[in-house]
């Protein structure tokens, strides 16, 4: 109860201090907000890009196309041959009649296909490998190309893998950025609190003379740091959300030109929570480090 009252009192004091210098507060909040908006926005964007790749098969696949003249039996033979191998996990036979039907159903193609004298599609076998390495994929593809009646072998989901690799790299970049800017946030609060303590030197001194513990003196400054960080986090959220809404339509239009569906959304509740928590935590940390230095510098 006492603890809660102390915290509440310190929190109110910190809020009052933030409010007494609105311009300073606003500038600090904006600085922190921009610093946090970069990694937060990057993270959000990568989430969306990564989701694009999700639709494509995650497991590496091969498609073996038979020649158009091949009979069904040849395709079945190839499928059996593939299934007999230890490095093949699964196969699926796409019969040419079914492919034709599917293609006719899609817009714009029906007329073209209808104009053709005969079914242009071959039988095809989609192969999922047990071994995911690109080398295994390549070697099976090379082998299958030599089999009878096989016209072509295509390695699928290549672009999805490239995208995934790019997203992994970009995530590392965002993490690096977040670390650097997080350190920046700690520095900002460290300095702000240092200035606060300097302007409140008398208060610190008098409180000590009246029997205040270091914890009592530290408390409002820690709240100040945490609240400053939190407000910065809110600013970052507003920046990211604003940019998202602004970019939403143009990005969706661009994506559509590539046949992709990409609708930017504002950060989820979970990500928002993480952002606010991290911002407040880093602000608190900067304040704590600053107070440790300040209080030991004029300890008595």
């Amino acid at each position, binding site marked *: 109860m006492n603890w809660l*009252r102390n915290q509440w*009192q310190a929190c109110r004091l910190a809020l009052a201090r933030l409010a007494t210098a609105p311009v300073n507060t606003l500038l600090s909040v904006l600085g922190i907000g921009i610093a946090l908006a970069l990694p937060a926005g990057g993270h959000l964007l990568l989430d969306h890009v990564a989701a694009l790749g999700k639709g494509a098969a995650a497991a590496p696949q091969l498609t073996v196309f038979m020649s158009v003249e091949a009979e069904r039996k040849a395709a079945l033979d190839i499928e059996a041959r593939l299934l007999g191998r230890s490095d093949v996990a699964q196969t699926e036979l796409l019969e040419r009649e079914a492919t034709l039907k599917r293609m006719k159903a899609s817009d714009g193609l029906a007329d073209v296909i209808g104009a053709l004298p005969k079914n242009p599609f071959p039988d095809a076998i989609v192969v999922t490998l047990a071994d995911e390495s690109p080398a295994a994929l390549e070697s099976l593809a090379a082998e299958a190309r030599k089999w009878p009646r096989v016209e072509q072998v295509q390695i699928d989901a290549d672009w999805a893998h490239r995208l995934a690799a790019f997203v992994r790299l970009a995530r590392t970049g965002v993490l690096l950025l977040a670390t650097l800017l997080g350190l920046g946030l700690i520095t900002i609060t460290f300095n702000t609190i240092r200035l606060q303590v300097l302007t409140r030197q008398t208060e610190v001194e008098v409180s*000590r*003379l*009246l*029997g*205040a513990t270091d914890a009592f003196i530290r408390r409002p400054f820690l709240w100040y740091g945490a609240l400053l960080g939190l407000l910065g986090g809110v600013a970052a959220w507003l920046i990211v959300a604003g940019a998202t809404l602004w970019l939403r339509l143009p990005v969706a239009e661009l994506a559509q030109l590539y046949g992709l569906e990409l609708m930017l959304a504002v950060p989820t509740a979970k990500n928002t929570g993480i952002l606010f928590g991290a911002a407040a935590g880093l602000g608190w940390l900067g304040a704590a480090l600053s107070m440790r230095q300040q209080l030991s510098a004029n*300890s*008595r």
Partner: protein
Amino acid sequence: MIQLDRISKRYPPDMTALTDVSAEIGAGELVTIVGHSGAGKSTLLKLIPAIERPTAGTVLVNGQNVGALSSRALPFLRRNIGLVFQDQKLLFDRSALANVLLPLEIVGFPHREAQRRAEAALDKVGLLKRARALPIALSGGEQQRLAIARAVVHRPGLLIADEPTAYLDAETAQDVAAIFMEFHRVGVTVLVATYDDSLFPGARRLRLDHGRLA
């Protein structure tokens, strides 16, 4: 209550403030410390709440060796001491009432009770009507009385004041001194450094001369 045993205090490089001072102050006593400027009055007072520590000798307050207290234990010693400083050390960014509330907040008093006590303390020094005023708006005598209210609001057993009447005219000085006399009457140990101990009739006098007890 306070025992000073062969206290010396030197400031580097070679300034000696106190030399071999021994004295004892009993609970409930009213003691004045007199002496010329630079005699070591302020230094002596600062040793008791451990604002300064002696170079040699021991300071005992309620049997506790103050000079050897850890910085963690220090706040709890000071909570039983009311301090009035020469320069008052008021906080000018908050009202008179908020200044008086500070010692109670430090001890962790419930807000309502603290409010009540702070108002009582202001009333005692005749400042209740100025409770909302900022210290800058108070006269010298009012500021000194505000400092006293802050020093006594948590009802310490020991009240220490360094030249509380230094910058006041004769009449105001008399008023301020009377407040100290009143606390002495209700059993508080009062220790006052002053240039004019005629303001504190009946007090035991300790005279310092160039850092030695005369």
